[in-house]
């Protein structure tokens, strides 16, 4: 029972979570999204929930600059209570910058275009179509949703870090210590984590549930396109049609849902 209700936190857009008291933030987002309520505790999907067959993103690196990149990262980290830990070893990050040679180590070459060589790439979880982390997790604490989003259940994670060994993108962080003291301003709309669990970008599943686009997309002002990869009519597909894009380590067969316009 507990399992299904926890999953429904992510799955059912309205975020029901019966019987959990003190869930004020959840209830607030409830009110906000006007979840319709039917008989005896059964809930139906919020009509404003954003839905897709397979969510994907395009990072238009041409539009990224020192002006907007920090605010994109900040928007994500603030929205998800990502701690700001100075100790590099214990650092937790959901979205961050890498140079081309690190973001695309297998594509890097000696005579790289100067602009690309110096460009900072935003990297985060690729929400792979065939996620190795999900395969590796022994407790299903990390799982792939029907809409392609790969999620973490922070309460089920035993902290074995097998998913981190499995992820070829270094997208996951582990809470080597209690992250809460390192959160400057706690966002009550998203849970904080405890020590000993793994976390990563969730494509803002909690925002999609209430009809909002991901925080990074919102902060990027067009530099990041978000949409349904399976819908030929979607904006993301139009952009993919018109631009040459690359994905990280496609040869591994993980099927990343994040594309880059270089």
């Amino acid at each position, binding site marked *: 029972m507990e399992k299904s209700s926890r999953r429904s936190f992510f799955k059912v857009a309205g975020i029901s979570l019966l019987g959990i008291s003190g869930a004020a933030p959840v209830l607030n987002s409830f009110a906000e999204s006007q979840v319709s309520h039917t008989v005896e505790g059964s809930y139906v999907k919020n009509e404003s929930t954003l839905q897709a067959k397979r969510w994907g993103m395009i990072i238009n690196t041409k539009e990224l600059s020192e002006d907007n990149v920090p605010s994109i990262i900040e928007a994500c980290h603030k929205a998800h209570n990502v701690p700001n830990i100075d100790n590099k070893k214990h650092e937790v990050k959901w979205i961050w910058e890498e140079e081309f040679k690190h973001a695309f180590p297998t594509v890097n070459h000696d005579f790289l275009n100067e602009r690309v060589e110096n460009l900072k790439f935003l990297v985060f979880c690729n929400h792979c179509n065939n996620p190795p982390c999900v*395969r590796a997790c*022994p407790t299903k604490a990390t799982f792939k949703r029907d809409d392609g989003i790969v999620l973490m259940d922070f309460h089920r994670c035993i902290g*074995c870090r*097998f998913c981190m060994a499995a992820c070829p993108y*270094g997208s996951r962080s*582990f*809470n*080597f210590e209690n992250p809460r003291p390192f959160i400057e301003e706690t966002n009550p709309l998203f849970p904080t984590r405890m020590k000993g*669990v793994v976390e990563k970008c969730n494509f803002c599943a909690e925002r999609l549930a209430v009809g909002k686009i991901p925080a990074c997309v919102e902060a990027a002002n067009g530099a990041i396109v978000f949409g349904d990869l399976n819908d030929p009519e979607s904006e993301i597909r139009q952009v993919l049609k018109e631009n040459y894009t690359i994905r990280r380590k496609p040869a591994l067969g993980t099927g990343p849902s994040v594309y880059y316009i270089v």
Partner: protein
Amino acid sequence: MLETAIKGSRNYWLWLAGLAAVFCLGFLVYLNQLSFGLGITGMNRDVTWGFYIAQFTFLVGVAASAVMLVLPYYLHDYKAFGRITILGEFLAVASVSMCLFFIIVDLGQPQRILNVWLHPTPGSVLFWDTIVLNGYLLLNIVIGWKILEAERSSIAPPKWVKPLIYLSIPWAVSIHTVTAFLYCGLPGRGFWLTAILAPRFLASAFASGPAFLIVLCFIVRKLTKFDPGTVQIQTLAKIVTYGLIINVFFLLCEVFVVFYSGIPEHMEHFKYLYAGHDGHGVLVPWMWTSAALALLSIFLLINPATRKNEKILPFTCVMVFVAMWIDKGLGLVSGGFVPSPLHHFNEYVPTLKEIMITFGVYALGFIILTVLFKIAVSVKEELVS
């Protein structure tokens, strides 16, 4: 038979007390880890498995090596090993116990460990690893105990033990194979992504486990009235020889494939381990020590004069054990994480606290080993007198 464990000499109790002290110290540090988190270790965002998992990986090999006694005895009717199979089985029990403790101390949320069984995930190799490890532990406890009990009463062991013994043979192979599969099925980790990892694990296991057992046999011979036997020790030494040679051969196969193909993601780990990278090279001296010890051991083991010399053999065995320990207990795990999939070189060095916890687990394992060997040897002594 348990009572034989509490009738020991002063030295026996002193040894146990010493181990208990080390264990308690380790346990206190573990409490600190439990309250602070795994941040007390040297692990980081890039190297997410460290000393604990490396020890676990190494000890799985020591555990699997029991099969090197059981298989000749039961499948090939090599009678001489009947005398010491129990030692191999009890060594397996102690090793697998340590493996399980190492997994527990490595978890970020150990109190949730039952989630592995509450939410079984057949797609995860880790799930299967817990199955094979616990199964192997149980098999060896039951088999070892029943055989020893029968031996003590001079009767034949119950018939149902036989199928369990046969089952334990492929099962021993499975524990190390599945443990290798933890590593070698991961995309983007070039160092581990090799089909020869499981065979390599087994080869090194069949060198390190029997080598350790030989050392234990010498200790038993020295401290008790039971002599495991010269023939037995020599046969074990031959097994170590073959295991070690095959292991080195496998490693060279790996080196050939990696460097002849020239694929950077596969080469860089080897380069880092054996030559270092841009000032990062904590493991370089270790890896060369391991290689040198392995080669020297091969030389001493192949040569019948030095293999048969019982003054040299224990030292050779210690060298084999150390060589294999460095290879698996240090190089294999760290070396696979450096460089990271994003090609960053973040090195790993265990912290003092981490090492103390490791010693604590080893101490607990040695307590189990000592008590089990005490029981086995007491029964053997009764039969001798």
